[in-house]
């Protein structure tokens, strides 16, 4: 049971790290957040496999509930950031490139980049 608790604590720590990262979302940080969430899933799955059918330790349940609460927080932060960027992008496109015939914000052409150094 001690090992299960240890794994769950690692899972919680990884989700907390993801939440912390999501406070300042950028593409690079989102990649790190995804890695932390993957680690949390692995640790949770591993910890879950170690839990006996009828655990007497209420700490296990409390730890899992805490992980769930943090996962919900991560979800909310993710949703907020995604909404923030997608809305801003829509505004930006409409301001810069105008609207399409059906009223949606038009796309900004992004041609391939060519970079020469030397």
């Amino acid at each position: 049971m001690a090992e299960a608790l240890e794994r769950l604590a690692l899972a919680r720590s990884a989700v907390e790290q993801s939440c912390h990262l999501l406070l300042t979302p950028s593409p690079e940080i989102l990649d790190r957040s995804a890695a932390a969430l993957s680690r949390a899933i692995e640790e949770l799955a591993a910890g879950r496999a170690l839990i006996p059918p009828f655990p007497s330790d209420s700490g296990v349940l409390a730890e899992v509930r805490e992980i769930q609460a943090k996962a919900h927080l991560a979800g909310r932060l993710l949703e907020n950031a995604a909404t923030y960027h997608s809305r801003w992008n829509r505004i930006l496109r409409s301001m810069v490139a105008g609207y399409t015939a059906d009223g949606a914000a038009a796309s900004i052409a992004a041609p391939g980049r060519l970079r020469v150094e030397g």
Partner: protein
Amino acid sequence: MASILSALHVAAGSLDALNQALVVTQNNVSNASTPGYAAQTQTFYAMPFDIPEGFVGGTRAGEVVSARNQYAEQAVWQQNTLLGQSTQDVNTLTSLQTNFDISGNTGIPLALNNLFQGFSAWAQTPTDTNARQTVINQAQTVASSFQQTATSLATLTQNTEQQLQQTVTQVNQLVGQLQGYNAQVLNGDHNDAGLDADVYSTLEQLSQYVPISATKQTDGAVTVMAAGQTMLLQGDTQYQLGFQMQQPTNPPPTNTDGPPTAHILSSSGSDITSTITSGQLGSLLNLRNNVLPTYIGTAYNQGELNTMAQQFADTVNGLLTSGNISDAVPPASDGTGGSPAVPGVPLFTYATNADGTVNATNVAQSLAVNPDITAGQLAAIDPGPPEVSNGTALALANLATPTNAAGEINGASFTQYYGNMASQVGSDLSTATNNQQVDQSALAQAQNLRQQQTGVSLDDEAVSVIEFQRSYEANSHLVSVLDQLTLDTINMLTPST
């Protein structure tokens, strides 16, 4: 003809501006990674529209960056509004929870348990005067507990109304400050950075009280609206909010003495209460108009505390008055003497209106023990048939764990019904506390996003949006997996739920 030419001129100007923007933006996108390249910014603004004066409107180059700033500020205000709401929810629900002890060690649940024990002891010795007096004493404690809870809820209700008034006053004061800033801007302080900082600081303060949207006009003045539809400030004109408590008239109230409801009024007197659903003001309105009435009632509902008080009193009184204090004495063989059975008298009283109907929303507050009742007047006898000498006392004792609907309230025992009320408050508080923690993080995130935009190229954002989208989808999928896994694990650990 002139108007067609004007329209064409406007369209041409707008197209020209858009074309410039496209050129600039695509140039920036192409060179986003070019070392030493200084990104250009294309801006837009609206031309004045006043046909008689010759202003035909249209779009010209303006400042895209300012739009982003405005957008980021609005995102912060939205999160601040949510945090203001959850913080107020936590504060008020914490106060509300102190009125509902679920442990059974104080207040109504303790008084009820003691009374049920008193009934039980009386059922064992139905003629014992001490046991009867104990029942009356415990009944007085039950009545006092209901009164205390009702009084405490009434105080909380009054405090909430005062807070509503104070919050409206605070909103008006902050908008008044913004009005002063606008006046300065309109008098020429258009580019005062300090003044601009004051404006945004005040708007951020304001956003914790009410959901706001604010836009900066071309003259530099800020226009502020509440809930997206009620004007608070335009130029140097402030539109003050009002607050009033009002008893509804349509449909006619079923409880004429029922508590009134809180209303927020626009400066024109329109009722905008339904539009204020977030912020500190939204929280207080919800608490005053929805949460507290659950317990204290409204013009149309009795409220759970009053319902419980009345049903408990009616149930106890019904059993006692259908019982007998003493048996009938048959007349002698010569037909003389004898007396009918003496029926029981009610134990509890509560307020009624002048016409004799129940004052439904004042039952808990007015619940009392019948001042005329004596220990000898408690009816222990169930006349049957068959007559049972302690039948009524037993039936009263069985109210602790009722076996039929007559002793229940909405399918629950009185103690369970109270427990449901208490647990609902606890559940609401728990939800509000969780929301507050999440909202604090969401506000910090919005503030970080606002901070991050400084020095970031708009074009970089345009380029990275696809990257953002993929990252969000990946993270979102992982959060879903994690959520499902925790849910499955919780179900595994709590198979009964």
